[in-house]
Protein backbone atom coordinates (compact mmCIF):
# COMPACT_ATOMS: atom_id res chain seq x y z
CA UNK A 1 0.00 0.00 0.00
CA UNK A 2 1.19 3.52 -0.80
CA UNK A 3 0.88 5.60 2.36
CA UNK A 4 1.11 9.30 3.14
CA UNK A 5 4.68 8.63 4.29
CA UNK A 6 5.59 8.12 0.61
CA UNK A 7 4.28 11.64 -0.05
CA UNK A 8 6.27 13.00 2.89
CA UNK A 9 9.47 11.37 1.55
CA UNK A 10 8.86 12.81 -1.93
CA UNK A 11 8.06 16.37 -0.80
CA UNK A 12 10.84 16.10 1.79
CA UNK A 13 13.29 15.24 -0.99
CA UNK A 14 12.02 18.29 -2.90
CA UNK A 15 12.69 20.59 0.06
CA UNK A 16 16.08 18.93 0.58
CA UNK A 17 16.94 19.71 -3.06
CA UNK A 18 15.82 23.34 -2.56
CA UNK A 19 18.03 23.49 0.53
CA UNK A 20 21.07 22.20 -1.39
CA UNK A 21 20.48 24.48 -4.38
CA UNK A 22 20.11 27.45 -1.99
CA UNK A 23 23.41 26.57 -0.35
CA UNK A 24 25.29 26.99 -3.64
CA UNK A 25 23.28 29.96 -4.96
CA UNK A 26 25.72 32.89 -4.80
CA UNK A 27 23.11 35.30 -6.20
CA UNK A 28 21.25 35.00 -2.87
CA UNK A 29 22.98 37.08 -0.16
CA UNK A 30 21.22 35.04 2.54
CA UNK A 31 21.78 31.60 0.99
CA UNK A 32 22.77 29.92 4.29
CA UNK A 33 19.51 31.03 5.91
CA UNK A 34 17.45 29.63 3.03
CA UNK A 35 19.45 26.40 3.04
CA UNK A 36 18.84 25.97 6.77
CA UNK A 37 15.12 26.83 6.57
CA UNK A 38 14.25 24.51 3.68
CA UNK A 39 16.61 21.87 5.13
CA UNK A 40 14.75 21.85 8.45
CA UNK A 41 11.43 21.42 6.64
CA UNK A 42 12.95 18.55 4.67
CA UNK A 43 14.11 16.97 7.93
CA UNK A 44 10.64 17.36 9.42
CA UNK A 45 8.96 15.75 6.41
CA UNK A 46 11.41 12.86 6.04
CA UNK A 47 12.13 12.03 9.67
CA UNK A 48 9.53 13.92 11.76
CA UNK A 49 7.81 10.65 12.71
CA UNK A 50 11.10 9.27 14.09
CA UNK A 51 12.03 12.34 16.16
CA UNK A 52 10.86 12.85 19.73
CA UNK A 53 8.20 15.53 20.28
CA UNK A 54 10.73 17.74 22.09
CA UNK A 55 13.14 17.62 19.15
CA UNK A 56 10.34 18.42 16.71
CA UNK A 57 9.53 21.38 18.97
CA UNK A 58 13.13 22.61 18.81
CA UNK A 59 12.88 22.34 15.01
CA UNK A 60 9.77 24.56 15.09
CA UNK A 61 11.58 27.12 17.28
CA UNK A 62 14.57 27.07 14.89
CA UNK A 63 12.25 27.81 11.92
CA UNK A 64 10.70 30.65 13.93
CA UNK A 65 14.15 32.05 14.79
CA UNK A 66 15.33 31.97 11.15
CA UNK A 67 12.19 33.86 10.06
CA UNK A 68 12.25 36.33 12.97
CA UNK A 69 15.87 37.33 12.41
CA UNK A 70 15.17 37.86 8.68
CA UNK A 71 17.65 35.23 7.59
CA UNK A 72 15.78 34.29 4.41
CA UNK A 73 16.49 35.89 1.02
CA UNK A 74 15.87 35.29 -2.68
CA UNK A 75 18.11 34.32 -5.56
CA UNK A 76 17.99 35.94 -9.03
CA UNK A 77 15.70 34.27 -11.59
CA UNK A 78 17.59 32.37 -14.27
CA UNK A 79 15.40 33.42 -17.21
CA UNK A 80 14.42 37.06 -17.84
CA UNK A 81 10.91 38.48 -18.34
CA UNK A 82 11.39 39.22 -22.07
CA UNK A 83 12.63 35.70 -22.75
CA UNK A 84 9.60 34.25 -20.90
CA UNK A 85 7.20 36.41 -22.92
CA UNK A 86 8.80 35.28 -26.19
CA UNK A 87 8.58 31.63 -25.10
CA UNK A 88 4.91 32.10 -24.16
CA UNK A 89 4.22 33.48 -27.63
CA UNK A 90 5.94 30.43 -29.18
CA UNK A 91 4.22 27.73 -27.11
CA UNK A 92 0.73 29.29 -26.95
CA UNK A 93 -2.14 27.94 -24.92
CA UNK A 94 -0.62 24.44 -24.94
CA UNK A 95 1.31 25.68 -21.89
CA UNK A 96 -1.84 25.12 -19.82
CA UNK A 97 -1.80 21.41 -20.74
CA UNK A 98 0.72 20.14 -18.11
CA UNK A 99 -1.28 21.91 -15.38
CA UNK A 100 -4.34 20.04 -16.59
CA UNK A 101 -2.35 16.79 -16.34
CA UNK A 102 -1.70 17.49 -12.65
CA UNK A 103 -5.31 18.42 -11.94
CA UNK A 104 -6.94 15.64 -13.93
CA UNK A 105 -4.66 13.05 -12.35
CA UNK A 106 -5.65 14.30 -8.90
CA UNK A 107 -9.36 14.89 -9.56
CA UNK A 108 -10.24 12.05 -11.95
CA UNK A 109 -7.78 9.72 -10.22
CA UNK A 110 -9.47 10.28 -6.87
CA UNK A 111 -12.96 9.87 -8.31
CA UNK A 112 -11.97 6.76 -10.28
CA UNK A 113 -10.32 5.18 -7.26
CA UNK A 114 -13.08 5.96 -4.77
CA UNK A 115 -16.10 5.05 -6.91
CA UNK A 116 -14.92 1.90 -8.70
CA UNK A 117 -13.81 -1.55 -7.51
CA UNK A 118 -10.25 -0.17 -7.62
CA UNK A 119 -10.89 0.90 -4.04
CA UNK A 120 -10.91 -2.71 -2.90
CA UNK A 121 -7.32 -3.18 -4.05
CA UNK A 122 -6.32 -1.00 -1.08
CA UNK A 123 -3.58 0.53 -3.21
CA UNK A 124 -3.67 3.90 -1.41
CA UNK A 125 -3.94 4.82 2.27
CA UNK A 126 -7.52 5.67 3.16
CA UNK A 127 -8.47 9.39 2.93
CA UNK A 128 -5.01 10.20 1.59
CA UNK A 129 -5.73 9.22 -2.04
CA UNK A 130 -5.87 12.81 -3.30
CA UNK A 131 -2.46 13.78 -1.93
CA UNK A 132 -0.81 10.65 -3.28
CA UNK A 133 -2.43 11.18 -6.70
CA UNK A 134 -1.47 14.88 -6.66
CA UNK A 135 2.15 13.79 -6.35
CA UNK A 136 1.76 11.29 -9.19
CA UNK A 137 0.14 14.06 -11.26
CA UNK A 138 3.17 16.30 -10.67
CA UNK A 139 5.57 13.54 -11.70
CA UNK A 140 3.48 12.81 -14.80
CA UNK A 141 3.31 16.50 -15.77
CA UNK A 142 7.08 16.83 -15.35
CA UNK A 143 7.53 13.82 -17.64
CA UNK A 144 5.27 15.50 -20.24
CA UNK A 145 7.21 18.77 -20.00
CA UNK A 146 10.57 17.01 -20.31
CA UNK A 147 9.40 15.09 -23.38
CA UNK A 148 7.93 18.23 -25.00
CA UNK A 149 10.20 21.15 -24.06
CA UNK A 150 13.41 19.36 -23.02
CA UNK A 151 14.38 21.77 -20.20
CA UNK A 152 17.75 21.48 -18.40
CA UNK A 153 17.64 18.65 -15.86
CA UNK A 154 17.70 20.92 -12.77
CA UNK A 155 15.18 23.43 -14.21
CA UNK A 156 12.07 22.16 -12.35
CA UNK A 157 13.90 22.28 -9.01
CA UNK A 158 15.39 25.70 -9.75
CA UNK A 159 12.11 27.21 -10.96
CA UNK A 160 10.24 25.69 -8.02
CA UNK A 161 12.83 27.19 -5.69
CA UNK A 162 12.32 30.62 -7.26
CA UNK A 163 8.64 30.39 -6.28
CA UNK A 164 9.14 28.95 -2.78
CA UNK A 165 11.79 31.63 -2.09
CA UNK A 166 9.24 34.28 -3.11
CA UNK A 167 6.76 32.83 -0.63
CA UNK A 168 9.45 32.53 2.05
CA UNK A 169 8.58 31.70 5.64
CA UNK A 170 4.89 32.29 4.89
CA UNK A 171 5.02 28.79 3.32
CA UNK A 172 4.93 27.23 6.79
CA UNK A 173 2.93 29.92 8.63
CA UNK A 174 -0.36 28.01 8.15
CA UNK A 175 1.36 25.02 9.76
CA UNK A 176 2.50 27.18 12.70
CA UNK A 177 -1.03 28.49 13.15
CA UNK A 178 -2.46 24.99 13.03
CA UNK A 179 0.06 23.97 15.70
CA UNK A 180 -0.93 26.98 17.83
CA UNK A 181 -4.58 26.03 17.46
CA UNK A 182 -3.89 22.49 18.63
CA UNK A 183 -1.83 23.75 21.61
CA UNK A 184 -4.66 26.15 22.52
CA UNK A 185 -7.09 23.25 22.34
CA UNK A 186 -4.76 20.98 24.32
CA UNK A 187 -4.36 23.46 27.17
CA UNK A 188 -8.10 23.96 27.47
CA UNK A 189 -8.22 27.46 25.97
CA UNK A 190 -10.73 26.30 23.38
CA UNK A 191 -12.89 24.89 26.17
CA UNK A 192 -12.59 28.13 28.16
CA UNK A 193 -13.63 30.25 25.20
CA UNK A 194 -16.30 27.66 24.56
CA UNK A 195 -17.68 27.93 28.09
CA UNK A 196 -17.59 31.72 27.80
CA UNK A 197 -19.43 31.60 24.49
CA UNK A 198 -21.77 28.84 25.63
CA UNK A 199 -23.07 31.13 28.39
CA UNK A 200 -24.59 33.38 25.71
CA UNK A 201 -26.18 30.48 23.81
CA UNK A 202 -29.68 29.56 25.03
CA UNK A 203 -30.07 25.81 25.40
CA UNK A 204 -32.10 23.62 23.08
CA UNK A 205 -32.25 25.88 20.02
CA UNK A 206 -29.97 25.43 17.02
CA UNK A 207 -29.99 28.88 15.36
CA UNK A 208 -28.36 30.89 18.20
CA UNK A 209 -25.60 28.25 18.46
CA UNK A 210 -24.98 28.49 14.70
CA UNK A 211 -24.85 32.31 14.90
CA UNK A 212 -22.35 32.25 17.78
CA UNK A 213 -20.24 29.69 15.88
CA UNK A 214 -20.20 31.77 12.67
CA UNK A 215 -19.70 35.16 14.32
CA UNK A 216 -17.12 33.60 16.67
CA UNK A 217 -15.16 32.28 13.66
CA UNK A 218 -15.18 35.76 12.09
CA UNK A 219 -14.27 37.58 15.34
CA UNK A 220 -11.46 35.21 16.27
CA UNK A 221 -10.15 35.50 12.71
CA UNK A 222 -10.21 39.29 12.98
CA UNK A 223 -8.22 39.03 16.24
CA UNK A 224 -5.64 36.52 15.01
CA UNK A 225 -5.58 37.53 11.32
CA UNK A 226 -6.04 33.98 10.13
CA UNK A 227 -9.02 31.65 9.94
CA UNK A 228 -6.58 28.73 10.30
CA UNK A 229 -5.91 29.73 13.91
CA UNK A 230 -9.59 30.35 14.64
CA UNK A 231 -10.94 27.10 13.22
CA UNK A 232 -9.48 24.52 15.66
CA UNK A 233 -10.52 26.73 18.61
CA UNK A 234 -14.10 27.24 17.44
CA UNK A 235 -14.44 23.62 16.32
CA UNK A 236 -13.34 22.45 19.78
CA UNK A 237 -15.48 24.98 21.61
CA UNK A 238 -18.78 24.88 19.71
CA UNK A 239 -18.57 23.18 16.32
CA UNK A 240 -17.91 19.62 17.44
CA UNK A 241 -19.47 19.36 20.94
CA UNK A 242 -22.58 21.45 20.28
CA UNK A 243 -23.38 21.60 16.55
CA UNK A 244 -22.14 18.15 15.45
CA UNK A 245 -22.41 15.93 18.55
CA UNK A 246 -25.15 17.88 20.35
CA UNK A 247 -27.57 18.79 17.56
CA UNK A 248 -26.42 16.20 15.01
CA UNK A 249 -25.28 18.68 12.36
CA UNK A 250 -23.52 17.42 9.21
CA UNK A 251 -19.78 17.67 10.05
CA UNK A 252 -18.80 18.38 6.42
CA UNK A 253 -21.10 21.45 6.29
CA UNK A 254 -20.15 22.73 9.75
CA UNK A 255 -16.44 22.35 8.96
CA UNK A 256 -16.35 23.68 5.40
CA UNK A 257 -18.76 26.62 5.76
CA UNK A 258 -17.49 27.40 9.27
CA UNK A 259 -14.05 27.98 7.75
CA UNK A 260 -15.60 30.24 5.09
CA UNK A 261 -17.32 32.29 7.83
CA UNK A 262 -13.80 32.82 9.16
CA UNK A 263 -12.66 34.04 5.73
CA UNK A 264 -15.25 36.86 6.05
CA UNK A 265 -13.24 37.96 9.08
CA UNK A 266 -10.00 37.84 7.05
CA UNK A 267 -11.51 40.42 4.67
CA UNK A 268 -12.05 42.85 7.57
CA UNK A 269 -8.77 42.74 9.54
CA UNK A 270 -5.46 44.59 9.16
CA UNK A 271 -3.88 41.54 10.87
CA UNK A 272 -4.23 39.69 7.57
CA UNK A 273 -1.43 41.87 6.25
CA UNK A 274 -0.72 39.79 3.14
CA UNK A 275 -4.19 40.29 1.74
CA UNK A 276 -5.15 43.72 3.05
CA UNK A 277 -2.14 45.89 3.85
CA UNK A 278 0.42 44.63 1.30
CA UNK A 279 -1.80 45.39 -1.74
CA UNK A 280 -2.65 48.85 -0.36
CA UNK A 281 1.08 49.58 -0.30
CA UNK A 282 1.63 47.87 -3.64
CA UNK A 283 -1.06 50.01 -5.33
CA UNK A 284 0.26 53.11 -3.54
CA UNK A 285 -3.05 53.93 -1.88
CA UNK A 286 -3.04 56.91 0.51
CA UNK A 287 -5.34 55.09 2.92
CA UNK A 288 -3.66 51.87 4.09
CA UNK A 289 -7.08 50.52 5.12
CA UNK A 290 -8.56 51.32 1.70
CA UNK A 291 -8.73 47.66 0.65
CA UNK A 292 -10.49 46.67 3.88
CA UNK A 293 -13.02 49.48 3.40
CA UNK A 294 -13.76 48.20 -0.10
CA UNK A 295 -14.28 44.68 1.31
CA UNK A 296 -16.51 45.28 4.35
CA UNK A 297 -19.62 45.68 2.19
CA UNK A 298 -19.03 42.18 0.83
CA UNK A 299 -17.74 40.56 4.03
CA UNK A 300 -20.71 41.31 6.29
CA UNK A 301 -23.46 40.06 3.92
CA UNK A 302 -21.27 36.99 3.19
CA UNK A 303 -21.03 36.24 6.92
CA UNK A 304 -24.83 36.35 7.18
CA UNK A 305 -25.14 34.08 4.13
CA UNK A 306 -22.62 31.56 5.54
CA UNK A 307 -24.44 31.40 8.87
CA UNK A 308 -27.75 30.79 7.08
CA UNK A 309 -26.10 28.13 4.88
CA UNK A 310 -24.84 26.24 7.95
CA UNK A 311 -28.29 26.46 9.53
CA UNK A 312 -30.17 25.22 6.46
CA UNK A 313 -27.67 22.71 5.01
CA UNK A 314 -26.33 21.05 8.18
CA UNK A 315 -29.62 20.51 10.00
Amino acid at each position, binding site marked *: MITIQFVFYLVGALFAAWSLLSLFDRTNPKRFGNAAFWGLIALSLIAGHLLEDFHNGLLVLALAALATFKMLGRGAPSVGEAERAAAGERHGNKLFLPILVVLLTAVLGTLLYLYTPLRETGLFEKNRET*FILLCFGVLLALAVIFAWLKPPILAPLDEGRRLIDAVGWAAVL*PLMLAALGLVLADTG*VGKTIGTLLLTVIPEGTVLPAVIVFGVGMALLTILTGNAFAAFPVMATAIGVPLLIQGYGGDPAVVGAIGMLAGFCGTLMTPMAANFNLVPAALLELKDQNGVIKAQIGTAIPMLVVNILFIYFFAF
Partner: protein
Amino acid sequence: MGEGALNQYLPLLGIVVVIFGFALRFNPMLVVPAAALTTGLLAGFDIEEVIGKLGKAFNDARIIIIPWVVLPVIGLLERYGLQQRARAVIGGFRAATAGRLLILYLLYRQIISAIGLHSTAGHPQTVRPLLAPMAVAAAEKQTELDEETEEKVKAYSAATDNVGLFFGEDIFFAIGSIVLIQQTLEAYDIILSPLELAVWAIPTAIAAFIIHGARLLMLDRSLARTTGDGMRRP
Protein backbone atom coordinates in the same frame (compact mmCIF):
# COMPACT_ATOMS: atom_id res chain seq x y z
CA MET B 1 -12.98 34.66 42.07
CA GLY B 2 -11.47 31.38 43.29
CA GLU B 3 -7.96 30.27 42.37
CA GLY B 4 -9.33 27.53 40.16
CA ALA B 5 -11.32 29.99 38.08
CA LEU B 6 -8.30 32.26 37.69
CA ASN B 7 -6.11 29.35 36.59
CA GLN B 8 -8.71 28.47 34.00
CA TYR B 9 -8.59 31.92 32.41
CA LEU B 10 -4.79 32.55 32.64
CA PRO B 11 -3.94 30.55 29.48
CA LEU B 12 -6.15 32.99 27.53
CA LEU B 13 -3.16 35.36 27.73
CA GLY B 14 -1.82 33.39 24.75
CA ILE B 15 -4.63 34.96 22.69
CA VAL B 16 -3.64 38.37 24.08
CA VAL B 17 -0.05 37.72 22.89
CA VAL B 18 -1.41 37.02 19.39
CA ILE B 19 -3.50 40.21 19.34
CA PHE B 20 -0.70 42.50 20.57
CA GLY B 21 1.94 40.71 18.52
CA PHE B 22 0.00 41.29 15.31
CA ALA B 23 -1.11 44.80 16.30
CA LEU B 24 2.51 45.81 16.93
CA ARG B 25 3.53 44.22 13.58
CA PHE B 26 5.91 41.60 14.95
CA ASN B 27 6.79 38.77 12.59
CA PRO B 28 3.93 36.21 12.77
CA MET B 29 6.54 33.43 12.86
CA LEU B 30 7.66 34.89 16.23
CA VAL B 31 4.20 35.75 17.55
CA VAL B 32 2.67 32.34 16.96
CA PRO B 33 5.21 30.15 18.84
CA ALA B 34 5.42 32.84 21.57
CA ALA B 35 1.65 32.62 22.03
CA ALA B 36 1.83 28.81 22.16
CA LEU B 37 4.60 28.94 24.82
CA THR B 38 2.71 31.55 26.88
CA THR B 39 -0.48 29.53 26.86
CA GLY B 40 1.29 26.26 27.64
CA LEU B 41 3.36 27.64 30.53
CA LEU B 42 0.35 29.41 32.08
CA ALA B 43 -1.65 26.20 31.79
CA GLY B 44 0.91 24.65 34.17
CA PHE B 45 3.11 22.63 31.80
CA ASP B 46 6.89 22.91 32.10
CA ILE B 47 8.92 24.36 29.24
CA GLU B 48 10.07 21.00 27.89
CA GLU B 49 6.50 19.72 27.78
CA VAL B 50 5.25 22.82 25.97
CA ILE B 51 8.00 22.62 23.33
CA GLY B 52 7.13 18.94 22.96
CA LYS B 53 3.45 19.78 22.46
CA LEU B 54 4.33 22.39 19.83
CA GLY B 55 6.57 19.86 18.08
CA LYS B 56 3.93 17.13 18.11
CA ALA B 57 1.21 19.48 16.83
CA PHE B 58 3.51 20.72 14.04
CA ASN B 59 4.48 17.17 13.13
CA ASP B 60 0.85 16.00 13.06
CA ALA B 61 -0.14 18.89 10.77
CA ARG B 62 2.70 18.42 8.24
CA ILE B 63 0.27 17.42 5.50
CA ILE B 64 -0.53 21.13 5.08
CA ILE B 65 2.85 21.53 3.32
CA ILE B 66 2.04 18.96 0.62
CA PRO B 67 0.35 21.28 -1.95
CA TRP B 68 3.72 23.06 -2.47
CA VAL B 69 4.69 19.96 -4.46
CA VAL B 70 3.16 21.59 -7.57
CA LEU B 71 5.71 24.44 -7.58
CA PRO B 72 8.25 22.70 -9.87
CA VAL B 73 5.55 22.28 -12.54
CA ILE B 74 4.22 25.85 -12.21
CA GLY B 75 7.72 27.32 -12.03
CA LEU B 76 8.90 25.37 -15.05
CA LEU B 77 5.87 26.45 -17.11
CA GLU B 78 6.46 30.06 -16.08
CA ARG B 79 9.97 29.71 -17.49
CA TYR B 80 8.29 29.00 -20.82
CA GLY B 81 5.94 31.99 -20.49
CA LEU B 82 2.87 30.65 -18.66
CA GLN B 83 2.18 33.96 -16.86
CA GLN B 84 2.46 35.92 -20.10
CA ARG B 85 0.02 33.46 -21.70
CA ALA B 86 -2.37 33.82 -18.77
CA ARG B 87 -2.14 37.60 -19.04
CA ALA B 88 -2.89 37.44 -22.76
CA VAL B 89 -6.01 35.41 -21.98
CA ILE B 90 -7.23 37.96 -19.38
CA GLY B 91 -6.23 40.81 -21.67
CA GLY B 92 -8.61 39.36 -24.24
CA PHE B 93 -11.56 40.39 -22.10
CA ARG B 94 -11.84 44.04 -23.12
CA ALA B 95 -14.89 45.09 -21.11
CA ALA B 96 -16.34 48.56 -21.40
CA THR B 97 -16.68 49.42 -17.70
CA ALA B 98 -14.57 49.03 -14.56
CA GLY B 99 -17.35 47.10 -12.82
CA ARG B 100 -17.85 44.61 -15.66
CA LEU B 101 -14.09 44.12 -16.01
CA LEU B 102 -13.83 43.38 -12.29
CA ILE B 103 -16.80 40.98 -12.48
CA LEU B 104 -15.02 39.06 -15.25
CA TYR B 105 -11.86 38.97 -13.15
CA LEU B 106 -13.86 37.85 -10.10
CA LEU B 107 -15.20 34.90 -12.10
CA TYR B 108 -11.75 34.11 -13.51
CA ARG B 109 -10.17 34.33 -10.04
CA GLN B 110 -12.79 32.06 -8.49
CA ILE B 111 -12.43 29.47 -11.25
CA ILE B 112 -8.62 29.29 -11.28
CA SER B 113 -8.62 29.12 -7.48
CA ALA B 114 -11.23 26.37 -7.55
CA ILE B 115 -9.04 24.24 -9.82
CA GLY B 116 -5.93 24.73 -7.72
CA LEU B 117 -4.27 27.46 -9.80
CA HIS B 118 -4.77 30.06 -7.05
CA SER B 119 -1.09 31.00 -6.99
CA THR B 120 -1.07 31.88 -10.70
CA ALA B 121 -2.74 35.21 -9.82
CA GLY B 122 -2.53 37.64 -6.92
CA HIS B 123 -1.66 41.20 -5.94
CA PRO B 124 1.90 41.30 -7.28
CA GLN B 125 1.27 38.98 -10.25
CA THR B 126 -2.01 40.28 -11.69
CA VAL B 127 -3.54 43.16 -9.69
CA ARG B 128 -0.75 45.72 -9.81
CA PRO B 129 0.53 45.14 -13.35
CA LEU B 130 -2.82 44.34 -15.03
CA LEU B 131 -6.11 44.53 -13.21
CA ALA B 132 -5.78 47.89 -11.43
CA PRO B 133 -4.45 49.76 -14.51
CA MET B 134 -7.15 48.19 -16.74
CA ALA B 135 -9.91 49.03 -14.23
CA VAL B 136 -8.66 52.61 -13.88
CA ALA B 137 -8.46 52.91 -17.68
CA ALA B 138 -12.05 51.66 -18.00
CA ALA B 139 -13.23 54.02 -15.25
CA GLU B 140 -11.60 56.94 -17.07
CA LYS B 141 -13.92 56.26 -20.00
CA GLN B 142 -16.92 56.39 -17.62
CA THR B 143 -16.08 59.56 -15.70
CA GLU B 144 -13.57 62.33 -15.10
CA LEU B 145 -11.53 60.57 -12.45
CA ASP B 146 -10.57 62.55 -9.36
CA GLU B 147 -7.92 61.14 -7.04
CA GLU B 148 -10.43 59.83 -4.52
CA THR B 149 -12.37 57.88 -7.15
CA GLU B 150 -9.18 56.47 -8.64
CA GLU B 151 -8.14 55.21 -5.19
CA LYS B 152 -11.55 53.59 -4.83
CA VAL B 153 -11.27 51.78 -8.16
CA LYS B 154 -7.79 50.52 -7.25
CA ALA B 155 -8.96 49.38 -3.81
CA TYR B 156 -11.87 47.52 -5.42
CA SER B 157 -9.39 45.78 -7.75
CA ALA B 158 -7.41 44.41 -4.80
CA ALA B 159 -10.62 43.57 -2.94
CA THR B 160 -11.97 41.65 -5.94
CA ASP B 161 -8.82 39.51 -6.04
CA ASN B 162 -9.21 38.66 -2.34
CA VAL B 163 -12.92 37.84 -2.61
CA GLY B 164 -12.34 35.67 -5.68
CA LEU B 165 -9.48 33.81 -3.98
CA PHE B 166 -11.16 33.28 -0.59
CA PHE B 167 -14.47 32.08 -2.00
CA GLY B 168 -12.94 29.97 -4.76
CA GLU B 169 -9.93 28.19 -3.28
CA ASP B 170 -11.81 25.93 -0.89
CA ILE B 171 -13.51 24.20 -3.81
CA PHE B 172 -10.06 22.81 -4.60
CA PHE B 173 -9.84 19.88 -2.24
CA ALA B 174 -6.05 19.74 -1.93
CA ILE B 175 -5.76 23.19 -0.36
CA GLY B 176 -4.38 23.84 3.13
CA SER B 177 -7.64 24.97 4.73
CA ILE B 178 -9.53 21.86 3.63
CA VAL B 179 -6.73 19.74 5.06
CA LEU B 180 -6.83 21.70 8.32
CA ILE B 181 -10.59 21.10 8.65
CA GLN B 182 -10.05 17.41 7.94
CA GLN B 183 -7.22 17.15 10.49
CA THR B 184 -9.13 19.04 13.19
CA LEU B 185 -12.24 16.90 12.87
CA GLU B 186 -10.16 13.71 12.67
CA ALA B 187 -9.03 14.41 16.25
CA TYR B 188 -12.69 13.75 17.22
CA ASP B 189 -12.90 10.55 15.14
CA ILE B 190 -14.92 12.34 12.48
CA ILE B 191 -13.38 11.00 9.26
CA LEU B 192 -14.13 13.01 6.10
CA SER B 193 -12.50 12.95 2.68
CA PRO B 194 -11.29 16.30 1.25
CA LEU B 195 -13.85 16.06 -1.57
CA GLU B 196 -16.77 15.73 0.87
CA LEU B 197 -15.67 19.04 2.44
CA ALA B 198 -14.79 20.85 -0.79
CA VAL B 199 -18.27 20.49 -2.34
CA TRP B 200 -19.71 22.55 0.53
CA ALA B 201 -17.60 25.52 -0.57
CA ILE B 202 -19.66 25.74 -3.78
CA PRO B 203 -22.85 27.43 -2.43
CA THR B 204 -20.76 30.11 -0.70
CA ALA B 205 -18.72 30.64 -3.89
CA ILE B 206 -21.92 31.31 -5.85
CA ALA B 207 -23.25 33.66 -3.15
CA ALA B 208 -19.93 35.56 -3.15
CA PHE B 209 -20.12 36.00 -6.93
CA ILE B 210 -23.67 37.38 -6.67
CA ILE B 211 -23.02 39.69 -3.69
CA HIS B 212 -19.64 41.06 -4.76
CA GLY B 213 -20.80 41.20 -8.40
CA ALA B 214 -23.78 43.32 -7.35
CA ARG B 215 -21.45 45.68 -5.49
CA LEU B 216 -19.29 45.98 -8.62
CA LEU B 217 -22.35 46.95 -10.67
CA MET B 218 -23.10 49.54 -7.97
CA LEU B 219 -19.53 50.80 -8.44
CA ASP B 220 -20.36 51.31 -12.13
CA ARG B 221 -23.52 53.23 -11.21
CA SER B 222 -21.62 55.48 -8.80
CA LEU B 223 -19.07 56.14 -11.55
CA ALA B 224 -21.89 56.98 -13.99
CA ARG B 225 -23.31 59.46 -11.45
CA THR B 226 -19.98 61.27 -11.30
CA THR B 227 -20.06 61.45 -15.10
CA GLY B 228 -23.37 63.31 -14.84
CA ASP B 229 -21.69 65.89 -12.62
CA GLY B 230 -18.75 66.11 -15.01
CA MET B 231 -21.08 66.76 -17.97
CA ARG B 232 -22.48 69.83 -16.29
CA ARG B 233 -19.05 71.40 -16.07
CA PRO B 234 -18.21 73.79 -18.91
